[in-house]
């Protein structure tokens, strides 16, 4: 294959990627968009294997087979609730691969810009790899989902990053084995920086970080494209870097806080009004039977699913309850907060998997005006997204975040595991309101009991 034809094929692949992203932005075209992107990737890999005098082709093909054998079952079998950590994992290995590619190419990189691109790829790819690994551990609950901070944390992080940049300067000037050895040092520092970068991020903010690391990997792939003089890698990486940045900002906006707050919120310690310490205040809790009566004889119910539902994997039990209520003539809709679940839009995926009809899912701004005519708002495993402090208390960390106004409903039922505040770490006044009933327990357990209780009505 001639160089020209290879470049044309890469151009076609690049167009496929643009169409893929465009397609993924709209529900009608999303699936086709994804397939177009996959076709572009297949084309690009075939070209890379056939163009240029490459050695070790059998070994490379074997490695591709190994990678596919690992990836396909993982992607096919993982439960939908575990989707965010799988995306984090795939993102991390991509960043790691980019860093390794740059390590190998660095000694061949002549010229200042190419060296800068190589070092940039190593640092950003390394941060993305290690950061994604920590993200994975947090989401998989291999480690605490609370922010991990230690005194001087921000300084250690800045120090490691500065050391990585300093060493990069040395490597930039060095040649031969010195450069290679130095590059290993840069990679190690980048990995450390990646870990320190994600540790202080709290569980609820992790999705934003996945998106940001996704953009990072994109940028490192773009830089490696510059390094290798490969326009396809440059275009594909830049597309992901740019769109990932936009996506990250939209997600942060949906959570009502600036991106810096998400990343460094824990760095600057929680100065906000912490959950008012003091004697426990009275709440009204009830058994499943009482709640079943409330729900079974309501005319209109709005279900607000949240993070806790995803954790308890209770989406199927929830659908069962809703169908049962509907068969009794209760009008039920789901009010979905943009950041409900573990990733923006995750709740929609989870409920779609449980065969909840799409028509029943409503966005917050659609549901809010109807809540005043709603008999019961059933909040399952959500807290911060229904906390009226976001509307009323300018000192609350979540002030300004769009919420579901369930306090407008005639009655509110919370299915909660405990009185522990949400990730924002602030008390929810609504829990103590007279119209509020709490049903404690694991969401799946509670929902199963509610189904049984409603059947007995």
């Amino acid at each position, binding site marked *: 294959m001639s160089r020209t034809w290879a470049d044309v094929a890469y151009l076609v692949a690049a167009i496929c990627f643009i169409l893929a992203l465009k397609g993924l*932005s709209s529900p009608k075209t*999303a699936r086709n968009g994804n397939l177009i992107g996959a076709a572009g990737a297949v084309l690009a890999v075939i070209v890379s294997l056939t163009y240029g005098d490459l050695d070790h082709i059998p*070994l490379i093909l074997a490695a591709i087979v190994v*990678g596919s054998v690992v990836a396909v079952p993982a992607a096919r079998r993982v439960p939908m609730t575990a989707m965010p950590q799988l995306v984090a994992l795939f993102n991390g290995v991509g960043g790691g691969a980019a860093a390794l590619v740059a390590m190998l190419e660095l000694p061949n990189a002549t010229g200042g810009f190419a060296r800068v691109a190589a070092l940039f790829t190593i640092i950003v790819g390394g941060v993305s790899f290690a950061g994604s690994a920590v993200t994975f551990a947090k989401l998989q609950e291999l480690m605490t989902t609370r922010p991990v901070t230690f005194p001087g944390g921000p300084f250690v992080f800045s120090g490691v990053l500065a050391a990585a940049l300093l060493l990069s300067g040395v490597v930039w000037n060095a040649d031969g084995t010195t450069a290679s050895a130095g590059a290993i040092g840069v990679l190690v520092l980048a990995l450390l920086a990646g870990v320190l970068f994600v540790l202080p991020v709290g569980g609820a903010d992790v999705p934003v970080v996945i998106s940001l690391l996704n953009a990072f990997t994109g940028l490192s792939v773009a830089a490696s494209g510059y390094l290798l003089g490969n326009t396809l890698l440059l275009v594909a990486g*830049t597309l992901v870097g740019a769109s990932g940045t936009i996506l990250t900002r939209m997600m942060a906006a949906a959570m009502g806080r600036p991106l810096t707050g998400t990343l460094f919120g824990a760095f600057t310690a929680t100065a906000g009004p912490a959950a008012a310490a003091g004697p426990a205040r009275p709440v009204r809790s009830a058994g499943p039977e009482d709640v079943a009566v409330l729900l079974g004889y309501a005319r209109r119910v709005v279900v607000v699913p949240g993070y806790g539902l995803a954790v308890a994997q209770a989406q199927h039990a929830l659908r069962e309850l809703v169908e049962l209520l509907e068969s009794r003539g209760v009008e039920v809709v789901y009010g979905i907060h943009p950041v409900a679940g573990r*990733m923006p839009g995750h709740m929609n995926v989870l409920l779609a998997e449980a065969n909840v009809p799409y028509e029943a899912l409503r966005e917050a701004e659609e549901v809010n005006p109807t809540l005043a005519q709603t008999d019961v708002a059933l909040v399952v495993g959500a807290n911060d997204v229904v906390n009226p402090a976001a509307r009323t208390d300018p000192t609350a960390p979540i002030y300004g975040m769009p919420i579901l106004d369930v306090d407008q409903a005639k009655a509110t039922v919370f299915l909660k595991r405990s009185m522990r505040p949400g990730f924002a770490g602030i008390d929810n006044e609504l829990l103590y309101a007279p119209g509020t009933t709490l049903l404690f327990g694991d969401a799946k357990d509670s929902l199963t009991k509610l189904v049984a209780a409603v059947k007995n009505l």
Partner: protein
Amino acid sequence: MSESIALLTIFVLSVFIGFEVVSKVSTTLHTPLMSGANAIHGVILVGAVIVTGQADSGLGITVGLVAVVLSTINVVGGFVVTDRMLEMFKGRRPAPSERAK
């Protein structure tokens, strides 16, 4: 130097395209979009194939092959899992009010 400028031009134009294509996505699709974008940067596999094919030391080949395995996981897993997610959206309400964010 002119090649550098050509690459820089491509970079800048790609930034604008990247901003443009996702600027009107509904929140419903954030997760699949992120996952799809994730799969696209897996095309670093192309870079891994090229550097491995040009490697001449045992260590170089080994590191290259590791990069090939990792990037294959990224690209193959990414597209498969995105497709699986999107499959569940099929045949439901045609378009959930594509609201500009």
